[in-house]
């Protein structure tokens, strides 16, 4: 029978687990960019396992993984030039802790999009603005419009808001918040390109929105994906280079990975607003859709809160389930991130909103419960139960409880440049969303 991608991985994992028992060593199962597997054994210095043991393991692995086997199926860590890059790699996922005689089993995915989903959020000592990510697994659900509405609402309450367009592939937030002529000279993509050669200082990245009119002390600033369109400004050339991880940190400890470069870009945008007006109270990050690394970084590492947009459809839930499963591989990660998430039901049909939201809520609950909520076994007493996190389906404070946004047909195919007053729409469509989101963002302060 032909061995397929998924089977190869599952079977190889079994072999790795057996190896941890038989060799008593820590085992790392590595999968390369083509999906091929190999095993690294963490052998103690000066006491390598026997050659026949290594050979047997290699034969077993090759039999199970079929075409998905690397040319050297088993490697001893003691023979590696830089064993830490495997044994203590950032993306290492522990699948089984050492128990008794048996070693630890970990997995390591090499060179694939998606690894960023597993990275923890860096601890930051300094007080930062409240950063909120707006994300949709599937695009086209009105996420940018919602970002606009939320920015406008927060500013109306006197807050200073910075809205950042992280949707570099299909930017749009800039145009919603600002006419072309009033955009800053540069955008996020410039910061990513220039920082690669240490040249990002002095980029003009933010402007105060003229589209949002605020009375009172509130302000809305926008950091677009690209700068003001003009002759000689090449967006694509920079975008093509934006995502790559740069070669390791140089002598000046310049951040290299995409995550730290994005963090630096957002940080610089915040600083620019602080310099030209005041420290933003809230930073809205309009993230691109899909499994892309930018979204991963935004949700796992940049955001204090992530609003997850979706309509009630099978692809939406399959997508979120796949995404959440990434986190549930590492229980601590799941515990750390789940309370920073909140569902948004986008494009809710007005005439049957209640029924729609009930079903949406149940689907969201099922998705969260299966992947991110604590399993609450029967027989747990009341005290233990209260410590576990698994909110009831009807719990309105739960991550799965949707903030509704009603569908507005006029916004389909909107050209903000042609209809500058486009945002003067029925406020009731967004009222629950903006009110609850504000509560979640500023809860402790408001």
């Amino acid at each position, binding site marked *: 029978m032909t061995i397929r991608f998924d089977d190869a991985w599952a079977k190889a994992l079994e072999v790795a687990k057996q190896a941890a028992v038989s060799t008593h060593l820590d085992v790392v199962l590595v999968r390369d960019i083509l999906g091929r597997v190999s095993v690294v054994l963490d052998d103690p210095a000066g006491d390598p396992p026997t050659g026949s043991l290594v050979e047997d393991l290699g034969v077993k692995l090759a039999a199970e993984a079929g075409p998905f086997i690397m040319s050297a199926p088993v490697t001893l860590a003691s023979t590696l030039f830089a064993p830490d890059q495997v044994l203590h790699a950032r993306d290492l996922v522990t699948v089984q802790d050492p128990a008794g005689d048996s070693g630890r089993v970990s997995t390591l995915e090499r060179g694939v999009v998606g690894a960023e989903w597993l990275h923890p959020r860096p601890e930051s000592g300094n007080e930062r603005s409240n950063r909120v990510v707006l994300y949709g697994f599937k695009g086209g659900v009105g996420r940018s419009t919602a970002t606009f509405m939320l920015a406008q609402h927060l500013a109306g309450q006197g807050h200073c808001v910075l809205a950042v367009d992280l949707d570099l592939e299909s930017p749009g937030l800039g145009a919603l918040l600002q006419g072309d002529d009033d955009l800053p000279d540069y955008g996020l993509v410039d910061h990513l390109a220039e920082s690669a050669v240490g040249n990002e200082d002095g980029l003009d990245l933010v402007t105060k929105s003229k589209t949002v009119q605020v009375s009172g002390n509130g302000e809305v600033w926008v950091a677009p994906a690209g700068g003001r369109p003009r002759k000689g400004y090449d967006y694509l050339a920079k975008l093509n280079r934006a995502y790559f991880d740069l070669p390791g940190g140089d002598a000046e400890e310049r951040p290299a990975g995409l995550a730290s470069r994005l963090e630096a870009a957002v940080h610089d945008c915040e600083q620019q607003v602080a310099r030209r007006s005041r420290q933003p109270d809230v930073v809205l990050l309009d993230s691109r859709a899909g499994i892309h690394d930018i979204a991963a970084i935004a949700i796992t590492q940049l955001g204090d809160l992530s609003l997850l947009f979706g309509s009630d459809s099978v692809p939406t839930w399959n997508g979120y389930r796949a995404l959440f499963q990434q986190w549930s591989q590492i229980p601590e990660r799941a515990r750390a991130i789940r309370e920073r998430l909140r569902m948004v039901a986008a494009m809710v049909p007005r005439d049957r909103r209640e029924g729609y939201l009930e079903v949406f809520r149940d689907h969201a609950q099922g998705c969260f419960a299966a992947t991110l909520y604590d*399993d609450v076994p029967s*027989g747990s007493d009341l005290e233990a139960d209260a410590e576990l996190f698994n909110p009831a389906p009807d719990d309105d404070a739960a991550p799965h409880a949707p903030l509704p946004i009603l569908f507005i047909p006029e916004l389909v195919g909107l050209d903000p440049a042609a209809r500058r007053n486009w945002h003067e729409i029925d406020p009731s469509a967004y009222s629950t969303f903006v009110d609850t989101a504000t509560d979640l963002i500023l809860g402790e302060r408001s």
Partner: protein
Amino acid sequence: MTASLSADEYRELIQVALPTSTDADTVDPEPRTLFTPDSHRLALDPDVTVVRGARGVGKTVWFKALQDGKLRALAANDYQLARLKSVETLAGYGTELRPDSYPGPASLGRMLEDGTAPYDIWMTVLLRALGTPGIQQPLSWPERVRWLRDHPDEQDEALATADQRAGEGKATRLILFDALDRLHTSREQTNRLIEGILRLALELRTRTRNLRAKVFIRPDMFDSPRLHFADASKLTSNAADLTWSVPNLYGLFFHQLGNAESRHASTFRSATGIWQSAEANRYLLPRNLMGDQDVQREVFTGIAGQWMGANHRRGHTYTWLPNHLMDGIGQTSPRSFLRALTSANEDTRGRFAGYQYALHWDGIKRGVQTASRTRVAEVAEDLPWVQTAMKPLAGQQVPIDQETIVNCWQEDDLATTLRGGGKETDESQVRTGPRNSDDYDEIIRELIEIGIISRRATGKLDLPDVYRIAFDLGRKGGVPRIQR
């Protein structure tokens, strides 16, 4: 606003204001603490015959209050229900043993065994209460009923006379029935007795102008007798429900605080708006504190803080508390609500005395747990079969498919247990049993009706936390529990 209470002062006030026992059987309502939520107005209308209410929502409170002239007048004022003032009440049945007014369970049981028609029993009770001469002499209830049967003409005449006399005095004579779960130990016999009461009530409505009955009854008991006498639907269409909205619940709490016998009560009142002094020592809530959720939330935030945790995303205290006491049909009983607050207060005093607010969120959680334990004990008492039916489901996790539940029951042969075939079954479980022990889908429907389980929009079944923990079901999750 004037100076508000400190956390300690609030704790002291709550302790005095909330009764340790919240059972209307043992605590009589009194003018100071009687709370009149707007949603209960209809239930007091003399023309409303059937008043449905689950356990702990105030059936007995109103049954007692209506019989007390002072409290009735007070309710008439609060509700602008002038007609209540000209009502004369009679006791048809209640928790209290009053063999002079109505037969007790033992006597009822014997009469049913002797083949006495339930309708005749209640007609006898009514005529005796109305002072019909002939029925006063016999000493025992069976004899009185026999007199009634022997004098059919006098029965009609007595009713007509009483009706006419009440009309002359511009009064309505209202016979009240409560505690119908204590009529008889057998569900079947109880149903027969209830049907008799309802037939009498309908008879009064159709045949007299000034004689009325009011029947306080649990919804599941009202639904179970087969009301197959003529015009029975008239009773259903005119029934009222004793329900408690979230603002009602907080209104009740604040009413108790403002009317407590504590030096802090007046401080609380002056800090929360303009309370009306209706009668001596009775103060009515300001309108907005009664019905405006934002105002209520602000006051409660001053007592319990704004959030259910250090993490502000865990929800508002104001909504969290009633939501977590809610059953499957969205009802929270005031008894559970007050009990949770009492327990939260005690717990905070013990464990978080230095907390900046009177009630700590962890104390509130503890309070909810205490209240739900009590709630489950009440269900076990009212509907023993529910416990029998839930037992095979222990160990399962929600949300759950209907099929899984039915499988559990089939494996356990629940039908036999419910019919009394199992050894562990005690008599009362069988007798109060579900409408149909053999039809598992029907049992699920019945459990949904009484709020033990609920059906989600996706068709799956769920248990509200109030019941889930006590019946030993878990909730499905993907993150394994930390091993310690």
